[in-house]
């Protein structure tokens, strides 16, 4: 395969469009799940909340304004083909320039502070982005981008379970995390679960799981069954839309897994609000 040269500007323009699009246009999977939930919600308040969320998402798409004011930290999962060269710049710089332009030109909120503890000064352009890059064979760059709000991010958790906990231990930790989150993460939520790998791999998988459309189940039928069971259990908790009571606490549960150590079974739960925003492109 021949080396392919890509201009930094192409990366920047693509990233800019992805972040504007994902903040204005909710995915079809989420909209369809919201509509189904509205039909099946037994709480009148819950039904009304779901109607308002649907109305909100329609307004955002029509007027091309952010559907939520928390347009998130910019996160990208990148599969970077090993035959690609950025001919006039650096990949991460080009990505951050795209984020900067999306959040500035697209009227998105700048929500990033430069230092977590002491300064907490806004960087005013929503950079730096969180970029997860995997080098793959090929001459293309595949990007899945999403803006992640922190109302739900703050409700996420990770635990280093050990093998004897088994599937019941995994389920208990996931359900406990959702129970503790309660009404805070803007239900109905999307639950991303990462199981296996190491401490950081589990967390990364959990985030990646929230970027998968909720109408696609895990390819391994054992984990697909787990996803369905967890969704059913979460919707028995009663929190409902906006946490005001009802049977729609979650719209979907996505599980991603990875090989792990003989001594370990890490489980990470990344909670996402109903504004589960992601968009993808191939360069």
């Amino acid at each position, binding site marked *: 395969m021949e080396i392919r040269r890509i201009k930094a500007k192409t990366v920047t323009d693509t990233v800019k469009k992805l972040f504007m699009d994902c903040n204005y246009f909710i995915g079809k999977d989420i909209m369809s799940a919201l509509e189904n939930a509205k039909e099946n919600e037994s709480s009148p308040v819950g039904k009304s909340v779901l109607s308002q969320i649907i109305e909100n998402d329609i307004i955002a798409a029509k007027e091309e304004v952010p559907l939520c004011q928390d347009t998130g930290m910019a996160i990208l999962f990148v599969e970077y083909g090993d035959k690609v060269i950025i001919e006039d710049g650096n990949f991460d710089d080009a990505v951050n320039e795209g984020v900067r332009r999306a959040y500035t030109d697209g009227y998105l*909120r700048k929500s990033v502070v430069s230092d977590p503890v002491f300064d907490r000064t806004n960087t005013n352009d929503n950079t730096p982005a969180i970029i997860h890059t995997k080098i793959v064979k090929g001459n293309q760059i595949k990007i899945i981008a999403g803006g992640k709000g922190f109302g739900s991010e703050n409700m996420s958790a990770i635990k280093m379970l050990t093998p004897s906990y088994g599937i019941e231990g995994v389920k208990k930790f996931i359900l406990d995390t959702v129970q503790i989150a309660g009404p805070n993460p803007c239900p109905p939520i999307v639950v991303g679960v990462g199981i296996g790998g190491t401490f950081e791999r589990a967390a990364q998988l959990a985030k990646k799981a929230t970027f998968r459309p909720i109408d696609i189940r895990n390819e391994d039928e054992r984990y697909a069954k787990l996803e369905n069971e967890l969704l059913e259990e979460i919707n028995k908790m009663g929190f*409902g839309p906006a946490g005001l009571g009802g049977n729609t606490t979650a719209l979907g549960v996505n599980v991603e897994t990875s090989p792990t150590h003989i001594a370990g079974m890490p489980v990470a739960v990344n909670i996402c609000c109903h504004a589960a925003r992601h968009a993808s492109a191939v360069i």
Partner: protein
Amino acid sequence: MTKKINLPITDNDIKNLKAGDNVLLTGSIITGRDAAHKRLFELIQNNKPLPVDITGELIYYVGPAPAKPGYAVGPAGPTSSYRMDKYAPSLLDLGLKGMIGKGARNRDVIDAIVRNRGVYLVAIGGAAALIAKSIKKEELLCYEDLGTEAIRRYTVEDFPCIVAIDSNGNNVYETEPLKYKKN
């Protein structure tokens, strides 16, 4: 039932609000979230005057997105209230009438609401574009350097919210989910 309230809210209005009521607010509210609350709280602790008079006000926990040209405000939905739990009791004790946010509050805040005959209202998290339709005007009051976290005054018309904790301490987050809990 839906109750229309013209602001500033009166003690009688608050007395008549019950947890679970739908409310449409018309008039003016102030905004503030994490960073602004931290500053106000530090001033209170040091017995210094606040840069904005909070007496009789409702404060909306919001950090809006920028307004597109032609819009009065950008999308402006509520942010999670629990992060302001550390600060809310002091503000209520100083005369703040209530808060608008989303999600549960801790016992200290509920006690301060009852003690001061205040109210906690919630708007729908993630319905920012829809909520912004009821905000007609914004004016910067202070802390411009905080950007989206600055304290602003919003002029609202039929701003939709729900009474989450009323002046007697009744709390929808405690009562409503239990009605739908199945395990």
